[in-house]
């Protein structure tokens, strides 16, 4: 945490700060996804859709309805929560690969709709001139101010999530992960908890989407495709599903890796694929599993 605060003081290069900003945006989503996948044991291959709904609601309300960013931001959260709730009720009854397919299908439907409703969303070419976030006279425009805003939100979301995990809700979620049947038998209302955590993770994604829209000021469907949904799940699994910190670790790695591989030109796709493969083969519990193993080994000596 301290490192986070200290980082911009040593690193003034706006390019690197820009990468850190995106890392923060992705972290917001992956923390929510880790609650859903790691704790409640439900997969979602459609979270790019909630990211998109947040971004497009913020973008459209501020450019076309001339709302200021904050009410648009809240409207985006409410809208995303409602959609997640309505989608969640029938979807979360599904299991395993059927759930994966249904969430994937939902994500694709939103993606197609963004492309097709040209009047509303600008279609495949998107739309721009989304205003920046302003707090009084201070406009969040420099990379440094973006960095501070996004990571402040990450910390709030993280603290809230950690708090949730260690509460009654968190224990209920973990019981669903181990065995939904047993949890039900013990009197845990599993479907209620599953939908709640699904909606919460959608809200996190919506927050990230709103920030994205105001930071980049231009959005098009390309940023919200299936590949992005898969990348998010990959971040959580590579980092280690059993823990929110694992999701953060995965996000850090998979945001930095493509930047690092940029020097390899076309070879990046091969190196990226093999890195992913090797991590999964040799660290089935993800990076965080390895960290934990090292720590216990270290503790013994």
């Amino acid at each position, binding site marked *: 945490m301290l490192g986070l605060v200290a980082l911009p003081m040593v690193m003034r290069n706006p390019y690197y700060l820009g990468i850190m900003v995106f890392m923060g945006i992705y972290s917001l989503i992956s923390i929510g996804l880790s609650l859903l*996948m790691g704790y409640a044991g439900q*997969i979602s291959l459609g979270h790019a859709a909630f990211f998109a709904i947040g971004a497009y609601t913020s973008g459209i309300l501020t450019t076309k309805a001339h709302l200021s960013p904050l009410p648009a931001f809240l409207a985006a959260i409410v809208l995303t929560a409602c959609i997640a709730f309505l989608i969640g009720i*029938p*979807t979360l*009854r*599904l*299991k*395993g*690969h*059927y759930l*994966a*397919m*249904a969430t*994937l*299908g*939902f994500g*694709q*439907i939103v993606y*197609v*709709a963004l*492309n*097709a409703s040209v009047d509303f969303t600008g279609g495949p070419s998107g739309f721009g001139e989304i205003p920046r976030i302003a707090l009084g006279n201070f406009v969040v425009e420099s990379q440094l101010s973006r960095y501070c805003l996004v990571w402040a939100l990450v910390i709030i979301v993280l603290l809230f999530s950690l708090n949730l995990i260690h509460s009654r809700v968190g224990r209920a979620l973990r019981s669903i992960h181990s065995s939904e049947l047993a949890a039900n038998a013990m009197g845990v209302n599993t479907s209620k908890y599953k939908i709640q955590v699904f909606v919460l993770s959608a809200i996190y994604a919506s927050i990230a989407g709103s920030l994205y829209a105001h930071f980049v000021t231009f959005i098009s469907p390309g940023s919200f495709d*299936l590949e992005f949904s*898969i990348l998010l*799940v*990959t971040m959580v*699994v*590579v980092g280690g*599903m059993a823990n929110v910190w694992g999701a953060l670790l995965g996000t850090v790695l998979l945001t930095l890796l493509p930047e690092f591989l940029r020097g390899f030109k*076309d070879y990046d*796709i*091969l190196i*990226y*694929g*093999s890195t*992913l*493969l090797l991590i*999964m*083969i040799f660290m*089935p519990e993800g990076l965080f599993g390895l960290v934990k193993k090292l720590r216990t080994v270290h503790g013994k000596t």
Partner: protein
Amino acid sequence: MGNSYAIESQEMSTSIILQLILSGVTIGSIYAMVALGFNIIYNSTSIINFAQGEFVMLGGMFMVSLVGPLNLPMWVAFPIAVLAVTLIGMAFERLCIHPLKMPSVLSLIIITIAGSILLKGGAMFAWGKETFSLPHFSTEKPILLLEATILPQTVWILGIIGMVVLLLALFFRFTIVGKAMRACAANRPAASLVGINVKRIVLLSFALSAAIGAIAGIIITPISLMDYERGAILGLKGFGAAVLGGLGNPMGAVVAGFLIGIVESLCAGLISSHYKDAVGLVVLLMVLFIKPSGLFGSAQVSKLKKF
């Protein structure tokens, strides 16, 4: 005058619908093939192989190279391309799936996704980013069928797929290896107890579904062209068909593949081609919401499966 015009347009529309259904059947048969590949691997391993679409792409690409630059006749190139992709499928299993001990379903999903990234990247290096075409298997002159026309290539596609489905059914029913694969699908520990080498069955199922994917890629390329990125969307549609039909049910997969193809084609022709890729998924979601284990899947069986 007005009256005869109305009759004419009505005739037009029935022929248009027939035409749309025919093209839906063509593309749907490819989805069915991809879904069959998903099912074969799922049955023996409970894995959804996200690289299945890449096998289709590779089949088309190998055929393009063998027929184009190497100038081989089609009937020679066909088995060579299928064999090449089969070997790649087997290598994929040996390198990515075999080394794992007790993998979780999610890490298997990520591994097959990583595998598909590698296959796609490899194809980009081997063939570049261009789009390739193949000559039709026979003449390109359309055949008149009732009020619609049908390409001879479509007849080839349907014929070859019919044969593949038939051969697969015979293989699973009557050969000892096919029976062993079905035993693995039903109960893996029990199959292992009666002396079936489960590891070898897993390898075989990857080989078989790679081969089926390759055949699908080869026969579709003359009509729909092929490039290194095409695998993902075909894989997605095939996964949709496999789920719609009920995972683990090959006949369900075939029916669902045709269904999705026809619905898409009708939507593209009658409503809007923008929504073509969404409408199949909407149908899929509706079915899943009503029947959570797919059209022909058994609720009891899916309850017993962990994933």
